């Protein structure tokens, strides 16, 4: 893929917390429009911190984070142009599924018929049509995560940030959600930044993988994934998939070897 106009540009981004801990030590990264980029690294290497900086939820200590989202004012947080999915579903337990997904619209101060249609469409896109009036506690962990994804998608964001969204799920649910996420990405082609610590997941999903090392967090390898598109489960058994997993694992091992012992 040729580097079309980037949506996210990070230049020399560092983050030092008040505790003195250096979470990020100079990150340069450009994410092209429509790319599915995975940030891969062991826990504690600053992946979440990086994602929060991209979302505008945290400020870098030094360096710049530049977002170029369609139709959004450059500096301020582009409300609704970014979707965020956390490791936990992060739903409001007192609200129904529909009210949870509707949240971005409610904050924007407009929930009319058109927005309700978008909520319904978003829920059916994640396979939850008919669950509008259910409460989160009535759903399984996988279904709650789908609600969380539906909420992130409902504003049709240009940029989707996912922070280990499937890490807490069982293997079967996780594989199903991997495929669903690919379908959603292919349908709308948002730019995706996906944080994971699973080599297999990152290779299966992404068009590109940035491998990080810890203390301080840095990107040490930037690997394009040249597997056929659209992907399906057949890919997982292909020789090319196995070879790519091998390459990424080696890069990850090298990254870990550079880092001071935990």
């Amino acid at each position, binding site marked *: 893929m040729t580097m079309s106009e980037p949506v996210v540009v990070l230049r020399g981004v560092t983050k030092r917390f008040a505790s003195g801990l250096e979470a990020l030590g100079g990150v340069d990264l450009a994410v092209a429009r429509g790319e599915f980029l995975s940030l891969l690294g062991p826990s504690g290497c600053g992946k979440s911190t990086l994602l*929060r900086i991209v*979302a*505008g*939820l945290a400020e870098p200590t030094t360096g710049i984070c530049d977002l170029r989202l369609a139709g959004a004012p450059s500096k301020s*947080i582009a*409300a*609704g142009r*970014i979707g*965020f999915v*956390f490791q*936990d579903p*992060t739903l*409001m*337990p*007192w*609200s129904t599924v529909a009210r949870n997904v509707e*949240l*971005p619209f*409610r*904050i*924007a101060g407009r929930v009319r018929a058109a927005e309700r249609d978008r909520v319904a469409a978003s829920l059916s896109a994640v396979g939850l049509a008919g669950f509008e009036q259910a*409460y*989160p*506690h009535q759903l399984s962990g996988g279904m709650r995560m789908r609600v969380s994804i539906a909420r992130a998608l409902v504003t049709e964001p240009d940029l989707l940030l996912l922070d280990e969204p499937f890490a807490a799920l069982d293997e079967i649910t996780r594989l199903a959600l991997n495929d669903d996420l690919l379908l959603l990405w292919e349908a709308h082609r948002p730019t995706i930044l996906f944080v994971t610590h699973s080599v297999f997941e990152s290779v299966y999903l992404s068009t590109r993988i940035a491998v990080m090392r810890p203390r301080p967090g840095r990107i040490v390898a930037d690997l394009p994934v040249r597997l056929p598109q659209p992907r399906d489960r057949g890919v997982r058994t292909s020789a090319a998939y196995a070879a790519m997993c091998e390459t990424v694992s080696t890069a990850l091992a090298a990254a870990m070897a550079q880092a001071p012992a935990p």
Partner: protein
Amino acid sequence: MKLGIGRRGLRLAAPIAIGIVFLAAWEATVRLRGIPPYILPAPTAIAQSLWTDGPSLLGSLWVTLRITLAALAAAALFGGGIALLFARSRLLELSLFPYAVVLQVTPIVAIAPLVIIWVREPFLALLVCAWIVAFFPIVSNTTVGLNSADRNLLALFRLYGASPGQILLYLRMPTALPYFLAGLRISGGLALIGAVVAEFVAGTGGAETGLAFRILEAGYRLAIPRMFAALLLLSLTGIVIYLLLDWLSRQLLRHWHESAIAPEDE
């Protein structure tokens, strides 16, 4: 469970059985030992007093109950309101919360005479005393609740450009609701205690006499069965207030809060 009557039945039957055994033992002890009623009246004597003095006691109960309910309503309103102010301004919380604690830890019996001197209107004076006792659990619980919003949800609200008012309304207030209701349940009992204590201090307090004064009066006249009857009415009132608040709490939280969601296997 294979107990035949089931858990619900057991919940009712067990305390009732204990109560009956206790009352029977009490009655037997009083009769067999010939204890005079001005030391310890038998349950049957109390029941009889309840029957004959019932109407006038109920009138007094209504006086105490009015003070209690008004104090509880004021505690809910102002307690919740003060907690909301604290949530809007950290400075306000830091500067005022210690004084709320001072008000809470100072025994109400010690403050009540002052309040009664300062507030001339007897109903209002008793109301203020009961309110002082009742409002703290609501303020302190609700303040904790308003500050307990999920971090990631807060981040999400910020991401979508929510105003502080929207964060309060859509996120912090719903988060605080179970805390507020837990405070309210504690305050229900405390408001009753506050009303009774204030009445003890105030004495007769105008034309209407509450249940606390009836207890004092019965004590002076050695009408101990009536004293017990009045006590019984007070306890029952406390229990009913608690049960009502508990029911309210369950109704409001039944869709989502762990404390109120019906267990699946019943």
